[in-house]
């Protein structure tokens, strides 16, 4: 089985004018197989956000290999990366990032617009995605008519609408109350378990990370631990 993500000795250095360079990643090796649900944790400055941006093809590593679904992507140009993002990746952000004054269904359609999907197909695929997150009847609502949890679920519908090979979630519960957080995390688990979707989630909350099946911890630009989530801890958190 071809891994979705396979990185070898990944390094990222941000050059600073007149000062010392900032090294964000100091040689990271990681493989994510299809169907995995990985939580990435670590304190601020540990390199986890930089890692996610590179995995999400929003940024390029300074050195090292990155194979996405078997293809080397670390040297691709901006347009090729954009095309890959529109076809193979789904993003969920902390701040939802829905277009204001735009209906839920139009928001969900947006990635397909950039992937060049015809309008009729877009409508039905967007409706299916909204059904999958349980918001079909809110299709014509605008973001300001939805609660935070509902908005994030619309964002999740948007991330899955292109049937991506990987969903990347950056602190998806960071702006939500506990109950909404639980809803959103349960949704991720369902997508992973029932639809076999591969999810990588960045968080600093252990009880959010506990919903995942594998936990990767970053510190100072390295991976310091990579282990399955303890089933008992998981039960405790969920119970």
């Amino acid at each position, binding site marked *: 089985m071809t891994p979705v993500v396979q990185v070898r000795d990944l390094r990222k250095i941000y050059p600073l004018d007149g000062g010392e360079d900032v090294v964000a990643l100091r040689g990271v090796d990681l493989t994510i197989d299809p169907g995995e649900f990985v939580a990435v944790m670590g304190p601020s400055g540990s390199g986890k956000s930089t890692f996610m*941006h590179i995995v*999400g093809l*929003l*940024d390029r590593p300074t050195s090292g290999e990155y194979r996405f679904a078997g293809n080397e992507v670390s040297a691709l140009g*901006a*347009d090729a990366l*954009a*095309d*890959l*993002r*529109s*076809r193979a*990746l789904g*993003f969920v*952000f902390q*701040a939802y*990032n829905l*277009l*204001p*004054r*735009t209906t839920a269904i*139009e928001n969900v359609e*947006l*990635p397909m*617009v*950039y*992937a*060049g999907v015809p309008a009729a197909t877009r409508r039905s695929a967007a409706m299916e995605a909204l059904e999958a997150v349980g918001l079909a009847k809110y299709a014509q609502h605008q973001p300001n008519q939805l609660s935070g949890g509902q908005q994030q679920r619309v964002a999740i519908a*948007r991330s899955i609408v292109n049937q991506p090979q990987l969903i990347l979630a950056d602190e998806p519960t960071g702006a939500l109350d506990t109950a909404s957080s639980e809803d959103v995390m349960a949704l991720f688990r369902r997508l992973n378990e029932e639809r076999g979707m591969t999810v990588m989630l960045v968080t600093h909350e252990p009880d959010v990370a506990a919903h995942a099946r594998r936990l990767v911890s970053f510190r100072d630009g390295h991976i310091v631990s990579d282990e399955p989530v303890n089933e008992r801890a998981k039960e405790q958190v969920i119970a």
Partner: protein
Amino acid sequence: MIGIAQTLRLALQALIRNRSRSLLTMLGVVIGVAAVIVTVAIGTGAKTSVANQINSLGSNLIVVIPGSVQTSGARTGNGGASTLTVQDGLAIAKLPGVSAVSPSVNVRAQLVANGQNWQTQVTGVAPTFTTVRSWDVGSGRFFTQNETDTSAKVAVLGQTVVKQLFPDGSDPVGRSVVIRNVPFTVIGTMIAKGQSGAGQDQDDTVLIPYTSALERLTGGTTIGQLMVSAVDGDHIDSVQSQITGLLEQRHQIVAGQPDDFQVRNLQDIAQAASATASILGLLLAAVAAVSLVVGGIGIMNIMLVSVTERTREIGLRVALGARGAAILRQFLIEAVVLSTGGGALGVLIGVAGAAAVAFFAHWPASVSISAILLALAFSAAVGVFFGYWPARKAAALDPIRALRFE
């Protein structure tokens, strides 16, 4: 990849989401284009009105006047000589390219009629006068060739003379007018002609046969001027030189000697006047174009603000797979839609404004299709030109930073 139609939809959605801002952004271009349309219409109107005035003097009119004479070293001005004769006129009438000739004998005289009196210009002319000067009879009739041949005592009055001599509104046709103690019968009146290009009241005149004027009023054979109508305006220069040649021969002017007459045509005057009107129109349009450019800068300002304001949106679109080119195109199309939308609105307002000017100022302000197309094309160009920089700024945004932008 994403097509133009789809990008246009995205751009329109974005503009409709910010309806009031879009309208305010358009305002500069609306005013600029409306100003261009109105000023060009006024400029065109000025040209038309100058051309009308020139035409009112007579179509393809050539005027022959006597030159100056020198008596004991003192030279009179042009027209001072008494060298033009009726026979000169008859000879000119035979030239090819000449459609009609009318002599003109001018006398200032006191008129008495209907218990009123009035001093005016009495002009002795031929029946061809109405053709030569493009001036029609309003009531009654003009005199005939037969009346001219017999030096009939008939007169046709200009409207100013009608008003002065018949203030009671009674019909002057059939009444008697005494000119220098000679009674004439009024057989008709001319339609009102208004002011000449030089500001003279052309209606303050009485027209009588030139034979009557020569025999009964001036008692000579020389005439004040010859009015010649060319067949068409294109050959007016050649007709003019033919007349010069003919008269030089008839007046036995030796080569190298100055002519004792002058031949002038109105096209030179018309050209000068319409050139002045064109320059005026251009000046107005240039001022209006400046306001259009200012409107374009307004669009650029708002688009720059909009790019900053929508940084997160742009970051999101890039993260979702929009290429830089798609972002650039969307913002460029937004700018062009704003500017051409403003242009279209400006055309409507400009056309209405020009109609209002025409209605209230009685000015022939006509809007040309080419002015409308030009204004629309120019406003679209303004959108592209002033929208490009903000659009490129948007396309160059780093998605990671854009997504974090607060």
